[in-house]
């Protein structure tokens, strides 16, 4: 509930203000969309995994993508970030069409993602994980790689930036450790921090809270909201309804590949279509008393 949420920063208030007049309907137009997708369809044989007619994501807002297991959230995520190509449809990021663009170019364009199953690069040190995240590195070109004088100064500034981000995410004590030795929650933090190294304009988080203990969840939520205050746009897939209610400015609900509802967290959670599709039942007392039965969807 909003009253239990942390105090909202100026950008959060601005995002909610901007979304206040948007109708609570699937495919609703946003005042300042950063991502626009049209008729994105992905079929696996006879199964239509994703069939999104139209969706817009508001710039500078935190948008949550929710839905029962198998709703197509992660597939849609993969399509937006170039990790999978749709059978039809077109989508754009900040005015640039991403259709057919390979995933690494999507990332270079400023839309960086994380993964549901955390991909910490185990046998690399935490600091090297961070350095890898930085974009436009001169020393990553083979012709320069053998000549350290071409990249040494850039490497130093990257390292400074990495240390700042590690401090912000409370990982500075782990700087020299192998990433594989971190706990599950710390890996989530590292993945988020690493994604920030490239200064993305939009961050796509696939289940950032999955498998993270409650104390660290609070820290993660704090980090996500602070990204919004830095001017970043965030889209995240999540099963944890508390998390969604706490930080999302806008919620998009998918079921069976389609978008069935949109709106601010409170309105969506009372939407009949959403209740029909699924809802994390015990999170919302008002709904349980209305006599609808729920089954809790466990995260995979």
């Amino acid at each position, binding site marked *: 509930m909003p009253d239990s949420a942390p105090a909202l920063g100026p950008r959060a208030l601005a995002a909610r203000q901007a979304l206040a007049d948007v109708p609570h309907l699937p495919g609703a137009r946003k005042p300042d969309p950063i991502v626009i997708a049209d008729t994105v369809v992905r079929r696996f044989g006879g199964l239509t995994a994703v069939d999104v007619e139209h969706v817009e994501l508001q710039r500078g807002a935190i948008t949550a993508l929710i839905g029962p297991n198998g709703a197509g959230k992660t597939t849609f995520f993969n399509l937006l*970030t170039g*990790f999978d190509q749709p059978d039809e449809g077109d989508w754009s990021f900040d005015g640039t069409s991403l259709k057919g663009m390979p*995933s*690494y*170019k999507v*990332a*270079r364009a400023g839309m*960086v*993602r*994380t*993964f549901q199953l955390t*991909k*910490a*690069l*185990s*046998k*690399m040190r935490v600091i*090297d994980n961070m*350095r*890898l*995240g930085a*974009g436009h*590195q*001169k*020393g*990553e*070109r*083979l012709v*320069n*790689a*053998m000549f*350290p004088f071409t*990249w040494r100064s850039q*490497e130093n500034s990257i390292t400074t930036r990495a240390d700042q981000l590690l401090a912000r995410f409370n990982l500075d004590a782990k700087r020299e450790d*192998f990433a*594989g*030795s971190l706990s599950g929650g710390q890996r989530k933090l590292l993945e988020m921090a*690493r*994604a920030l*190294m*490239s200064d993305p304009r939009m961050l796509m988080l696939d289940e950032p809270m999955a498998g993270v203990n409650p104390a660290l969840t609070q820290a993660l939520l704090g980090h996500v909201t602070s990204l919004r205050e830095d001017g970043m746009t965030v889209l995240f897939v999540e099963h944890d309804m508390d998390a969604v209610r706490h930080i999302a400015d806008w919620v998009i609900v998918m079921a069976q590949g389609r978008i069935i509802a949109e709106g601010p967290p409170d309105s969506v959670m009372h939407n009949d279509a959403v209740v029909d599709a699924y809802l994390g039942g015990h999170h919302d007392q008002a709904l349980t008393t209305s006599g609808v039965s729920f089954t809790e969807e466990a995260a995979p």
Partner: protein
Amino acid sequence: MDWGYIFSVTLQSAFGIEAIVFGLMAIGLNLHFGYTGLLNFGQSAFLAVAAYSLAVLVSDLGFSFWVGIVVGLAMAVVLALLLGIPTLRLRADYLAIVTIAAAEIVRLLVRSVALKDIFGGSDGLRDFSAGFYAMNPIPVGMYSIGPVSLNEDKVFVLIVGWALVVLALLIVWMLVRSPWGRILKGIREDEDAVRSLGKNVYLVKMQSLIIGGVLGCLGGFIYALGYQNIGPDFFGTDTTFFAYAILILGGAARVLGPLLGTIVFWALIQGTDVLLRSGIDAGFPLVAWMSGSQAAVVRYIIVGAGLMLLMIFRPQGILGDRKELALDAR
């Protein structure tokens, strides 16, 4: 038993031509497998195209030595492109299948009766190394290094060979400590994660395949020049697997792993052989029941058992870091 003789044979083998050839091969594989995680089971094909390019151009077509070397290097690049373009977009195991098949295709091609006029069939090719030895600045004579005595040509090829090993190690060392090398290690750990950070994984994998193949193909040149003839049967899959054994023995993803691996491996292979034979000659009851040719097989059993013990008690190899390996157990 003549311990001095046993020692000199072991020493000669540990720093001999085979140690150089397999060392260069393993240095290339280290970049492929150790750093990038590419399972290249066709490293012997890189040696074959280089050695045969040199031999065909010089011996059949009469070109100069350096033309042969340049074309040999170019052919190694072409082979890497041929292997990489269709497979590097796919999962790692496809590269393994394609490379092992490609290496066999190369070997069977140069061995074939139909192409005997070009590649010499199973007899192979000779008469291509005169241009190389003409550059030998070392005066004619026998040179003694400790208990080992070598002629001027042998000294020359060993000096050139070990210089190439040092050069290859230097290149690998400089590459893997660069940001480019960091991408390699990232790809080895999880290429999707590296892709999500905006890196062109396909390009970097291709670059790694080419560089590792070219470094390995230097071993093909040294093999051809050191023995002054080449035959197809050296370039079989067991050659590649020897190089893998060397890499894992020395420690994968360690710059000096292949160097230490090849020295130890060849010292063991030849050392156990000469030790067994000397034991048979001296009539030691433990080994006297064997013939000399049986001893040549038994040494592989002994070395193989030794490698197994190494994998059980020191799976990271001689230079590897146990902590790093333990991370996989999660």
